[in-house]
């Protein structure tokens, strides 16, 4: 019977119910979008790192695994690695950040495909001049770019010479020497990718490399170790950022539900008086409002998940380059708990106020 009353109450003010549920929904979407975006970016980075085909990644001293930083490792170190036993390929690359979180990869084309295998060209082909750019399909689609187009990156005009399937290292590739020259990083590398004769030997090779005094301070990872570091914890500030978003969501949810329930209680003062005259106890009144709130939270949570699919699609289709978003079902229970907790907290004061209403005053309320 109480459930019927709760449903009828929610149906009675359809617009308010819908707006309240939507507000809770956007709170859920906000969390799911931030997490989905973070996870999407990290997984995309993992896939592109794995797609290179290197067994070992070497980063210069002080470089973060995920952070975008320019070249700081002397190129001559490359020869040192190439001379080590069991290493079949040692390839240096330059990663140059631009426009915030985007980056362009400088590669020695011949060396890179020697390690990684040929690019699968969907349009065009390899560099023919130093000022040419290879882009992946994702970038081409998002930027509506194709072979022959001119693109300005790092204040330099590049001609797109090829569009390749995504999944190797980066999204944009330029000849390494030109990139070093443009960034005043001649003879400097961002990272070195190593391929070994037998992947089973990877750990023992890493152990040997770490013993070499000249490599003291260098970070040397197997591909498995390297990609395992692509997590929320290893991206500077990401976890804190997600916590801030969650905190904001809780506050928004709390305020929305608090306001909704407060106006509901005001509007229904007389009805609360009627219920009390019929024998409703304060707990009965609180129970009704808690159930209404819980239903709003569930409806809002479901709406939030549906909206997050839309947000995910929009980010992946409309946001220009380099942002990848994922649907994150593993966060659905967390967002449910957050939406429910914020909503119930928001309903607490109005609910207690309603429960404590004097029946006679409530019945005379106009």
């Amino acid at each position, binding site marked *: *019977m*109480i459930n*019927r*009353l709760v449903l*009828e*109450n929610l*149906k*009675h003010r359809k617009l308010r119910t819908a707006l309240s549920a939507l507000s809770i929904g956007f709170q859920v979407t906000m969390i799911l979008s931030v997490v989905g975006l973070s996870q999407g970016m990290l997984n995309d980075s993992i896939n592109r790192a794995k797609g290179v085909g290197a067994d070992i990644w070497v980063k210069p001293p002080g470089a973060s695994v995920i952070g975008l930083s320019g070249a700081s490792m002397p190129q001559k170190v490359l020869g040192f690695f190439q001379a080590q036993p069991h290493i079949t390929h040692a390839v240096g690359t330059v990663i140059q950040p631009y426009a915030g979180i985007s980056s362009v990869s400088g590669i020695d084309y011949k060396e890179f495909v020697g390690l990684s295998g040929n690019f699968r060209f969907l349009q065009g082909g390899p560099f023919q001049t130093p000022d040419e750019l290879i882009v992946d399909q994702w970038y081409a689609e998002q930027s509506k770019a194709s072979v022959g187009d001119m693109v300005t990156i790092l204040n330099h005009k590049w001609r797109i010479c090829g569009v390749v399937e995504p999944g190797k290292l980066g999204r944009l590739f330029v000849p390494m020497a030109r990139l070093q020259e443009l960034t005043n990083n001649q003879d400097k590398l961002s990272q070195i990718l190593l391929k070994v004769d037998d992947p089973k030997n990877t750990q023992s090779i890493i152990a040997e490399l770490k013993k070499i005094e000249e490599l003291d301070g260098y970070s040397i990872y197997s591909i498995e170790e390297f990609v395992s570091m692509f997590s929320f914890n290893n991206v500077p500030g990401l976890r804190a950022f997600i916590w801030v978003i969650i905190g904001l969501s809780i506050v928004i949810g709390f305020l929305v539900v608090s306001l909704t329930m407060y106006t509901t209680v005001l509007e229904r003062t*007389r*009805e609360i*008086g*009627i*219920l*009390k*005259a*019929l*024998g*409703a*106890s304060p707990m*009965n009144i609180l129970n009704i409002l808690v159930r209404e709130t819980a239903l709003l939270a569930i409806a809002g949570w479901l709406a939030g998940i549906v909206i997050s699919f839309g947000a995910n699609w929009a980010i992946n289709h409309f946001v220009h380059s380099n942002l990848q978003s994922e649907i994150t079902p593993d966060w659905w229970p967390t967002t449910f708990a957050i939406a429910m907790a914020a909503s119930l907290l928001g309903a607490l004061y109005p609910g207690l106020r309603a429960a404590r209403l004097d*029946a*006679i005053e409530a*019945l005379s309320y106009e």
Partner: protein
Amino acid sequence: MSEPIIRIQDLKKIYRTGDVDVAALRGVSLEVAKGDFVSIVGPSGSGKSTLFHILGGLAAPTSGSIHIDGDDLMALSDSGRTNLRRRKVGFVFQKYNLLPTLTAMGNIEMARYFSENAGPLDQSFRDLLTRLGIQDRLDHKPRAMSGGEQQRVAIARALVNQPAILLADEPTGNLDTENSEKVLGVLRDLNERLGQTILMITHNPEAAAYGHRTVHMRDGRIVRES
């Protein structure tokens, strides 16, 4: 006269508003027998509404003694008064006070829910619905019913738990003459056929005449009975 179902002796009720004490009841004594139909009349501020609220368990008395169907209201806590409203008192208000989001039957079921009165409606109550002329209106919400129909639904709701007393506060105050007569006829019929004890507050002498006796109140006291 049979055993009193309501026994009130020297009942006082003092409201505190700010620093001022306001005596709403100044020593009311009244006995109502089971099956009686009592009209309570008096000007505004005479204390009849306060008496109504105390009898209905909506307000606590300040002093004196008051018993309803064996329950000592002076000894009841808030939850005790809640139980009294669930089981022993049925209310009919001037403004009907139906829950607007529920149908007529939903309103009746709600009263049954709070009194933990489960199971299907018994035949005598179904007969009552027919007598009230609302058996075909039970699926309608209040906004789709006339004032007279709403008041008859409110009477059905008040009686669904077979309360010891039915308290009616100006039950015809919002009704036209025709509907007023219907509602008062229903109350008299309930009293005569079922022996339902009824206390009715009214300003209307014609309505008061439907009761067996009329209690006149003024300044928080009963000044006369007729």
